[in-house]
């Protein structure tokens, strides 16, 4: 403690300069991160004419017409797309959380022959991401008649989230002390009781992290719907956003408004679930 007190940094000129440089770099990066976002928001809150004549000034007064027209014009089908996205997200997230926690429980707490083999199989999935697999997966969906069907999107998203999330949950489940399991067995619990009544309640933060990550992944996914869904009534929001830009690209203000509205749910969710998202991502990638 003594050493600490002696070497505690003092507030001197050198320290001050260091802090100043630190903040200078960080604030510069903050500005760079915000540039595309601010330009988008400015564009969305101007009329088409204003955007042409003064593209980069703050939108004073803000014009809400673009946003309102997107939310109220049935032709732009913002709400149906939002609804499709919500359905896919809810189903995928439920599927991932249920299926992965079942499998992760077995891998973390129960021993059986060939366990390592089965587990290795799932690690293979980490090397075969959906961006590479999409064409082969398309064949299977076609054979199963799941094209142009939201279930096709849900199943594929779920299947490709298994590997990573089983790893994450297995890590969390394995960290729960073995004494707890022994005590439960001595008290007459079956393995299922232990899983259902003790392990899952204890693992709630981990389940929340997996759920938050899966929600983001599913909500943002473009590739799977792009390949699976043709029917524009089934487009989820990202696919709809891309098509909207293709169709109305000339009206930059309107497109900006659409992009802004489709980004908004993610941003709001991020503000509320930042802790879960961060803990899920770091558990998946960093030792500790």
């Amino acid at each position, binding site marked *: 403690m003594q*050493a*600490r007190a002696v*070497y505690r940094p003092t507030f001197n000129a050198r320290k001050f300069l260091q802090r100043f440089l*630190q*903040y200078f770099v*960080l604030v510069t990066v*903050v500005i*760079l*991160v915000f540039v*595309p976002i601010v*330009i988008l928001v400015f564009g969305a809150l101007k009329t088409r004419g204003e955007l*042409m004549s003064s*593209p*980069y000034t703050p939108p004073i007064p803000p014009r809400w017409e673009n946003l309102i027209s997107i939310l109220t014009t049935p032709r732009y089908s913002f709400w149906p797309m939002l609804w499709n996205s919500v359905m896919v997200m809810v189903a995928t997230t439920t599927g991932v959380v249920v*299926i992965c926690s*079942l*499998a992760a429980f*077995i891998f973390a707490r129960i021993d*059986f022959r060939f366990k390592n083999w*089965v587990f290795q*199989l*799932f*690690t293979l999935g980490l*090397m075969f991401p959906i*961006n*590479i*697999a999409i*064409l*082969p*997966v*398309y*064949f299977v969906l076609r054979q199963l008649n799941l094209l142009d069907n939201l279930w096709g999107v849900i199943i*594929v998203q779920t*299947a490709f989230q298994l*590997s990573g999330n*089983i790893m994450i949950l297995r*890590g969390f489940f*394995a960290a729960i002390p073995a004494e707890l399991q022994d005590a439960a067995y001595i008290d007459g619990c*079956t*393995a*299922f*009781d232990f899983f259902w009544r003790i392990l899952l309640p204890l693992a709630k933060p981990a389940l929340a992290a997996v759920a938050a990550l899966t929600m983001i992944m599913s909500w*943002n*996914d*473009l590739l799977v719907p792009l*390949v699976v869904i043709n029917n524009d009534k089934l487009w989820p929001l990202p696919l709809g956003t*891309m098509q909207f830009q293709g169709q109305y690209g000339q009206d*930059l203000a309107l497109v*900006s408004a659409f*992009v802004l509205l489709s980004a908004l749910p*993610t*941003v709001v969710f*991020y503000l509320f679930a*930042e802790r879960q998202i*961060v803990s899920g*991502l*770091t*558990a998946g990638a*960093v*030792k500790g």
Partner: protein
Amino acid sequence: MQSLNTFSNRLGLKSMAGLPRKFQDYLMIFLFLLPAVILFLLFVVYPILQSVYYSLFNWKGFGPAEDFVGLANFQNIIKDRVFLIALRNGLLIIALSLFIQLPLSLLLAVLVGRDLPGRTFFRAVFFLPYVLSEVIAALMWLFILNPDPDRGFINAVIVALGGQPLAWLGNPDLVLIAIFAALTWKYFGYHMLLFMTGLQNIPSEIEEAGRVDGANAIQNFFYITLPLLSSTIRTSVYISVLGSLQQFIMVWIMSKGGPVNASETMATYMYRFGFVRFQLGYGSAVAIYMFLLCLIFSLIYLHFTRKPDYLSGLEG
């Protein structure tokens, strides 16, 4: 016992409660793994095998694959100039990621440090682009990269500084740089987050001890912090390389692999042949090349570092 009974009743296995414990355990293992294994075999493993089969055919996707061509698809792919461009672009994106994006993320993680006031604010802002979808990120960058300075902010800045506006996405020499800028904007926050977590796991006492022994901040960083961070750095490199090899959405939206294939990646190349031209056999062969590249890289990586930390770290 009760919940197991209700669970099994629901599955119509009433007789199970009377069976020996061992059998119940096996049944549980089977039932718990079943959904994951079925989904995984059907939608991850089976497609790989099937595309190996189709890659040996000249197949347009209608009717059964009959025109067997052996390894001709594989040979034609590596002879195709466009595929070689895609491969080169993949390697270029990897190089840029490793030498620009990761050091930048590390620098920012170190700057934010452990106890800088405003730490959570900076982390939240830097991580925001990662949470936004690739579609939104790509469209925002498409807007600010517009060649017309009255529509594209970046060119407006260049003109204001006295330069000439550049056709970022229309110029074969610039398109990859522009896309890489967008990719960095989107992904640096993720790597920064990994580094921040890694830094937090280094006890501050070790760095303090270095300071006591007379190491300055730079020596401290290179001789103490960096070596202790090596497992996080390896993980970051692994994720970055695999991510770069399969870059698709951002490229597809911003440039469609153009102009004249200048920004083609292997994934856009595969998509073009598979879903635009419907040469499914050829596209399958491209998928297999990509899969093999990722597999080989993973194996080399495993050889040198044992396991990626996001596999091994979870076992302890």
